[in-house]
């Protein structure tokens, strides 16, 4: 899918339209969705997070 390079320079790349979160896990307090877990899990797998924040894509 076509992604605007400007969007890659966002300080929050997880809002990009090409990124999706699926599923839920149970906790002692109930269910937690993937989007609620994204800061912990999805970010770990995104190698460009720090680079995006530090140096805009050209």
């Amino acid at each position, binding site marked *: 899918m076509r992604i605007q390079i400007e969007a890659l320079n966002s300080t929050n790349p997880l809002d990009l339209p*090409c990124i999706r979160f699926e599923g839920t896990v149970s906790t002692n307090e109930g269910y937690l969705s993937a989007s609620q877990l994204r800061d912990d899990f999805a970010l770990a797998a995104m190698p460009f997070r720090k680079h995006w924040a530090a140096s805009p894509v050209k």
Partner: protein
Amino acid sequence: MHGSRIRDDARGAGWITLPEFVFNVDPTPQAFTLVGDEVGVVYTHCGFFFTLTKLSRTLGWILDRVENSSEISFDEIERMEVPGYVIQEILAVLQMWQEMEVSESFNIERMLGEVEPAAFARMEHLLHKVCHIIFFHESAHWQRTIYRAGVWSDLETRTLNHISRWMSSYDPALLISRESHDAAVNFLSADWAVARSWAEEIQCDLLASSAARAAGGGSAVAARDVYTAQGVLYAFVMQLQEIYDTRVAGREPTHRTHPPADIRGAIVHYIDAMEMGQTVGDYQFKVAGACTYINFCGARILGDVLGRLG
């Protein structure tokens, strides 16, 4: 754009083509890529994250040894005492996978509640590196759809040629037995489709390793981090999945699409050494020493685990 591997119609002024990246909370450690003509989807399950998190103390113990030793002999590894908690953590991962397979429900707090925050913090950087390699590997499967005509097939031909040379030469420095080498050679020789599938996986491993090193800034420390992560991926995650399938789930492993973890690591290192113009011995013990150490160490530890499984 001249000289780029990427087709002109796959990027333009102000835009680029990317696949959809899906992060699923599925607790099984799997990742895969669906490739279409114009679109693709890269799936990464959080199971990798959960599995590595459950191995926090083990990975911290390995990091201590990799980061604080300039030289480690095989004799030392053979003689080393594996802490009880290392074996316990590995057995706990096998149990976690088994529970997930039979129950289909996953309570994150029950599964990961015993992980100590300090142990997690010690290995969090390594965990991220392993996840990055997985991300880059899967993305490499997709990249073929945006490459110029001939680029991917040239890469594939080069990888297959390397594999042919690996098949005809056994090198003990790659740390696999002669029997394992010969068994892999026979398996590959029997079916050309298997060789092509293995070549694609190995090609994606090589591209992922290169991309992860570049993403880390290309420094010697970044390279060591990537080799460490590669070692953890081959020696612990993939090897452990093979142990789980054969010894816990009672499944016959199929290696038609993916090589066994030890063979995969050996071929990747062989090709990386050849591409760098290194001897296999120099590459294994000087360039990628951290990965070699973890592979050897992992085989020693998983041997203990297999002994416990009976």
